[in-house]
């Protein structure tokens, strides 16, 4: 790959009232990386996730996701980009109540245009992948917190997106479940998915190959570690923008 998965150039996001959540941030994350954006609350990391996830547009600066200049895409095109390229994992899971794990994952693929049978097939495969093959018929209230987050991860990766954005994925979990979820994210990364984890937990961040520290809307430190993985990826570039 000759271009990074995520590329932010001088990105600023100012909210009405003058609060600058991001101030001239530049960041480049290559395909196949597993990185943490870590910082205390109010550091701008959630805004970072939103602009990278194309849920929010920057006030200035340019963002490239998977090579696309986000500012040139319409709402519909951005939606399509999210449907095919980005998987989201949220702290509070956002699973539909009274809907089986399988359908929760399958319904996550509804905007990809796949047929229902294919959606369910892929959902079953994704649930297998996260180790919940035996819980497909369970509804969210019948699952533990860790299992719910695994369902949410299965939903995020059901469409095989090259990029997964996880917002405090272990924030609502006990440490054992949290560790399990982190292991799962490592496994997904090992199979080639670029994963960006937003967290305030330094310990979790420390377990990842690369940490980007934020404070007051700026990047204050970037470990800029080489991405794990194969030699063919390594030649792609020198790293930090």
């Amino acid at each position: 790959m000759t271009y990074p998965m995520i590329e932010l150039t001088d990105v600023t996001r100012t909210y009405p009232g003058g609060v600058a959540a991001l101030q001239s941030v530049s960041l480049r994350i290559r395909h196949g990386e597993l990185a943490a954006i870590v910082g205390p609350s109010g550091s701008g990391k959630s805004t970072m996730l939103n602009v990278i996830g194309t849920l929010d547009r920057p006030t200035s600066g340019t963002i490239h996701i998977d090579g696309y200049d986000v500012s040139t895409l319409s709402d519909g095109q951005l939606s399509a980009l999210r449907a095919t390229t980005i998987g989201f994992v949220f702290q509070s899971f956002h699973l539909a109540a009274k809907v089986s794990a399988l359908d929760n994952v399958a319904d996550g693929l509804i905007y990809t245009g796949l047929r229902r049978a294919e959606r369910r097939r892929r959902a079953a495969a994704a649930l297998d992948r996260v180790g919940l093959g035996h819980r497909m018929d369970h509804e969210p209230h019948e699952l533990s917190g860790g299992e719910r987050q695994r369902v949410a991860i299965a939903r995020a990766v059901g469409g095989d997106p090259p990029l997964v954005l996880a917002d405090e994925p272990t924030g609502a979990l006990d440490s054992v479940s949290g560790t399990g979820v982190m292991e799962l994210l490592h496994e997904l990364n090992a199979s080639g998915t670029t994963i960006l984890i937003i967290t305030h937990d330094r310990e979790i961040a420390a377990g990842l190959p690369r940490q980007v520290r934020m404070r007051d809307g700026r990047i204050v430190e970037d470990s800029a570690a080489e991405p794990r993985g194969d030699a063919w990826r390594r030649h792609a570039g020198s790293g930090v923008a």
Partner: protein
Amino acid sequence: MMAGVRGGGHWGGGEVVRPKPSPARMRLADVMRVGAVGLRTRPLRAFLSALGIAIGIAAMVGVVGLSSSSGAELDRTLSALGTNLLTVSSGTTLMGEAAQMPQDAETMIERIGPVERASSVGKISEAKVYRSERIPEAQTGGISAYATSLDLPGTVGATVRSGTWLNAATERYPAAVLGAVTAQRLGVGAAGPDVQIIVGGARFTVVGILHPVALATDLDNGVLVGWPVAESRLGFDGHPTTLYTRSEEAKLESVRQVLAGTANPEAPNEVDVSRPSDALAAKQATSQAFANLLLGVGAVALLVGGVGVANTMVISVLERRAEIGLRRSLGATRGQIRSQFLSESLLLSAMGGSGGILLGMGVTMGYAFYSGWPSVVPAWATVGGLVATLLIGAVAGLYPAVRASRLSPTEALSTP
């Protein structure tokens, strides 16, 4: 650097020559499935707001159905009875006294070309009717005795419920045929040689009982005896009081114009000419006006139901902000969010509408069956009801759907 498909010079933040992603179209089944999510997760609320629509539609379909059923019944009655019956009855003189028609009025009327048949009855005012001699004289029960021509049943469409009609023999003897109401008042269940009543002080044998006569309701309260026996035993003067005529349908109006003059050439103003089927139709028109009022009430109920759906949709959008945010993150476009809530609203009102149509049809069929009417629910009422509900669903869902689609995904997601 690799020789990639995207060419070189990317590092400046450069361009990638690839088609831009375009959102996939959702299949109709998927749109429906997503639209039904809200109904599935909150079935009681969905049921209640659909009920509002259902009541409105049921009221309208029921009112239309009942009035068309009673209309169909009237048509059936009229086509059985015929609408070509004209009645001539003696009215009052200028001085306000009861007028008399000439004795040969019937013969004169039969000479009018288009008149197909004519029959007459003459009220015998002096002859009071009692069940037996023991009944006090004052208790006449509002029953009148009539002398009748033998061809009366064919002209007015009267049929015999029990016994027989008068014939050339019995019309000379004290034999009587009772109207439906009379038989009930006197407590006579069936005709027979041993059933006797008192008419004008003499015993008369009840030879027959009539069904109610729709076009000559006066006869229901009457006791009919032969013309000769009325003259010989009851002191009947031979003047007919009411003439019934059947004419060619096409020339009914012209017959009507000459009827008064023919029946009573000396004083045409002293007779009243009427068309009994008009009275039935007028009664129908009155109930139609009432039905229109009920239809308006149904429309108001429907409107209130529509407001209920709109209210449900607004609340649904407020409650499901997190879901909307999630769907946006999963790749739903604004249009797809809009169509989700629009289709939810349409489903909701379509459910209510079809339930209401079934309910309305059920009410119509039940009532029509109970009344012995043919049950008719016009197709336009069914189709119109469905179209109305879909329109209401679209209008009620539009604003909430647009609001949902305009929601910023980040704000929606940050809702707990």
